[in-house]
């Protein structure tokens, strides 16, 4: 599938380039823009990013595959991230993770067939003092228990 940056995003890229002395340095913010527009980083997105920034394709590929927040496949509309690292684990992170897995019928990294949900077991999100937590796309939900976490899932449509 072909990918093109929107006019608005092309203007944003111009602004981003002003922040850095090299074009390569803009690759991370530009990949974020692409992901916002396209939903995930496909091969076409990487190629387009490389041509817009006039940098090597393999460098874009290297960056997109190194960082976990660039999705290399299409994720659900609601990307559910459950932290199970120590601070969350001590306060019931795994109970929440297991309950979410059961409710969505998904394993780590899977996407539901209707593309509504995807699930990821994430590493520490910096919510240790308000543990346990889940994040839905960009939003944090903290101080949870199993019931509250399931209620949040119910409220998503």
């Amino acid at each position, binding site marked *: 599938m072909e990918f093109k940056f929107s006019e608005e995003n092309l203007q944003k890229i111009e602004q981003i380039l002003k*922040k*850095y*002395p*090299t074009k*390569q*340095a*803009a*690759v*991370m*913010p530009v*990949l*974020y823009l692409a992901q916002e527009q396209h939903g995930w980083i496909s091969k076409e997105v990487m190629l387009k990013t490389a041509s817009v920034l006039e*940098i090597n394709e393999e*460098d874009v590929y*290297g*960056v997109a595959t*190194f*960082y*976990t*927040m*660039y999705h290399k496949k299409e994720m659900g509309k609601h990307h559910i991230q459950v932290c*199970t*690292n*120590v*601070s969350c*684990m*001590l*306060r019931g992170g795994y109970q929440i993770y297991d309950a979410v897995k059961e409710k969505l019928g998904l394993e780590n990294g899977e996407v539901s067939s209707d593309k509504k949900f995807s699930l990821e077991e*994430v*590493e*520490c*999100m*910096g*919510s*240790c*003092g*308000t*543990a346990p937590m889940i*994040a839905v796309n*960009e*939003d*944090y939900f903290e101080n949870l228990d199993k019931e509250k976490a399931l209620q949040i899932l119910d409220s998503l449509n």
Partner: protein
Amino acid sequence: MEKIVLPEIENFHQIEVYLQHGGYEAAKSAFSQTTDQIIDTVKKSGLRGRGGAAFSAGLKWSFMPKNNDKPKYLCVNGDESEPGSFKDRQILEYNPHQLIEGTIIACYAIGAKSAYIYVRGEYHKWIKLLEKALADAYEKGFVGEKMKETFATDFSCNIYVHKGAGAYICGEESSLMNSIEGKRGYPRVKPPFPAQNGLWGNPTTINNVETITNIPPIIKKGWEWFSAIGEPKHPGTILFGVSGHVNNPGVFELPSGTLLTDIIYKYASGVIDDKKIKCVIPGGSSMPPLRGDQLEGVKMDAESLKAVGSAIGTGGIMVMDEDTDLVRVLARIAKFYYHESCGQCTPCREGTGWMLKILNRIVRGEGTKKDVDLLVTIAKNIEGNTVCALGDAAAWPVKFMIERFREEFDAVVKDEVSLEPKNKVHSMRETANPITPVQV
């Protein structure tokens, strides 16, 4: 107790409120001094880095070369990904202007025209808050070209926010620089150190968000005032993030040298259900854990923690009660480092996966005593044999958890390796066709 980094003032994150309380006056006073004077003040204040290594901030600044035509850079490290650490996000939310003001002063002191504040990608909300504060500071003329007019100086600098994308390793300073350059976050071999060869090969200083936020009050009130707070060898306040089995988890700004037991029982309101403490990790998950019976009298500063066999790290205190399964905790920690190892150095790339495999085996109840010894051997072979400190960070919890809680591991492992084969294979003599005895 006076709060330096997180003052308890309502709406302090708003530029108007910040200005009402003397905001950006420290920057003004800084521009009336020479850069050497500022570096000297920070040196004398005794301020030590809050990102984990606790290195003297003033000394670090003084490594930046002078009389050098190359552009210089400042990186402010807000990658904050160490499990148990959640302090920088409080600064981004409640006191972004002091961070910005500190960044301006640091830029001036080291001669940097550009500063990058690197914030971890998951902090979408906090990045937006910081960007809002930064836009306000630009508008009021505290940053950028307009600051020449505002502060009546010939110096100006720009501050940019760079968003990470979910890699723990980018909290390591050289990896952070590669990430800003738009590369994979691989740590670099040191030397050369960033002050000689940093961002795009130019002189660069990297400071933690909390370190930089301490700068404006030091400039405003003087080094004598700052160096008198807390422990003389590690002065100032520290943001302690308490998590785990406590009644009141959260971030507490307290003088360095505050008793660990005070932080847990007084500020975090003690352990849930008044249980006993089995284990405390005092500085984020990579720091050596302490036993519950080791905590009495332990002061929270770099030197005191070193003396009891741990380290201050990022001040993330993880409390585990008497019912905690430490084998599972260690397996979870090992999983984290396995996930986050960048894969550049063999001991870390292979060792973290190997340790996780063994720990998972022990958790399943299939481990042996030899496995526990093997874990220690692997950890010792990772430690010190990698380009960056992630190797040590992965090795220390394993090494020290087993050293200090050996009985927890021995209780769940078998004594000997079972030699009983899982798939019974007959010996050649039994399976082969009967051999006719050789006739003599």
